[in-house]
């Protein structure tokens, strides 16, 4: 059932939860390693001794811990990347 995570609990566990969540994905070959990251909310809750809903709500860290201008910068980054690709002439064919 959705709820608001308490600020105390959030600040205590936000980094742990984020690093254990699928926000960080590690693969050996092409097989996902789920020892310390890419865990489900329930798996994180079990390991940290938390309520699963508190873990779920701690997903706000994925937005909260980024710099405020990350989205603005991303738009500019994409504009630049696309422009560079065509300026470098990496697209062959005239059609």
């Amino acid at each position, binding site marked *: 059932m959705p709820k608001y995570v308490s600020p105390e609990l959030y600040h205590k566990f936000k980094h742990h939860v*984020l690093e254990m*969540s*699928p*926000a*960080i*994905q*590690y*693969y*050996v*070959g*092409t097989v*996902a390693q*789920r020892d310390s990251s890419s*865990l*489900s*909310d*329930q*798996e994180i809750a079990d390991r940290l001794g938390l309520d699963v809903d508190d873990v*779920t709500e701690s*997903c*706000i860290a*994925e*937005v909260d*811990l*980024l710099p*405020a201008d*990350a*989205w*603005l*910068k*991303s*738009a500019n*980054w*994409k*504009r630049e*990347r*696309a*422009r560079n*690709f*065509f300026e470098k002439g*990496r*697209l062959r*064919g005239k*059609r």
Partner: protein
Amino acid sequence: MTAQPVQETKGLTPAQQIKQRGMQKGADQVGIASVADINRYAPPGHRPDDILIGAKSVIVFAGHTTPQGAWRSPDYRTHYHNRAFPRIRGGIAMDVAKFIESKYGYYSLGHIPPPVGFNPSLSLKLCAEMAGLGTRSMAAAILLNHQLGLLSLSACVTTMPLAADGPMKEPVCPHPSCVKLWEQKKTTPCLQTCPECLSGELEGGRIKWMRYDRRICSTRAQNVGPGAWQNVLVEAATEPDPDMRKSILLGSFTRGVLEAIALGGFTGQCGECLRGCPVCIEARKLPDKILDPDRV
């Protein structure tokens, strides 16, 4: 209620008929995964039979994400505004779910529940992998295949036991040219493009390891969407200068965020790691056609 006999279509197995139905409705490729295969990798709570009790198979529909011309625009926004398959993929899955229920009498679903936070209720990438539609790439473990490049996916979960296709035998990534580049410069086009999100190594012509950091990726792939909107709200609410607050809330970026949310077009807004991917470049090429110049 009396059981009704299934109307057979001559020469086609039920799995073939279901695939044919998906193709007729607009999928470029259809694969079937067994729930048992998916459950070997998916954690409890994120399995097909957590969504549909007794689920046995997942039918996965893949399509060209965009018309190929979308990759030939220097305006990066053209790409995601042309994401055509995502607009129809849910309808294909729903049609096939109803087809299976009416023709074969097995419970089926055409949509999976929405994600909680950023985490999906069921990984469509995993389902597609187990259905033999593609393999994981160095680019954020996105699924690729040689025919479509980047895959756009939807799925139908059903209690009907069907012959599964199983995973592909050979990995699609890395492309031979990436192996060559790695041997010379220890990099690949995707790693060069997005070092903030991607890292990894090749060894013996295969991916040795890779790491994907979704945090920065989400600000690009969902550049104007719910995350950006939540962030803009917090930023504006805590901004002490009223003129700056106005600049944040009335500016073109916030307007773009709202437009994307209102129009439901906030996913798949970045493909920069795949723009220079040789697998994708080959898949994007259109075949040469001979036109009669007098009838153009």
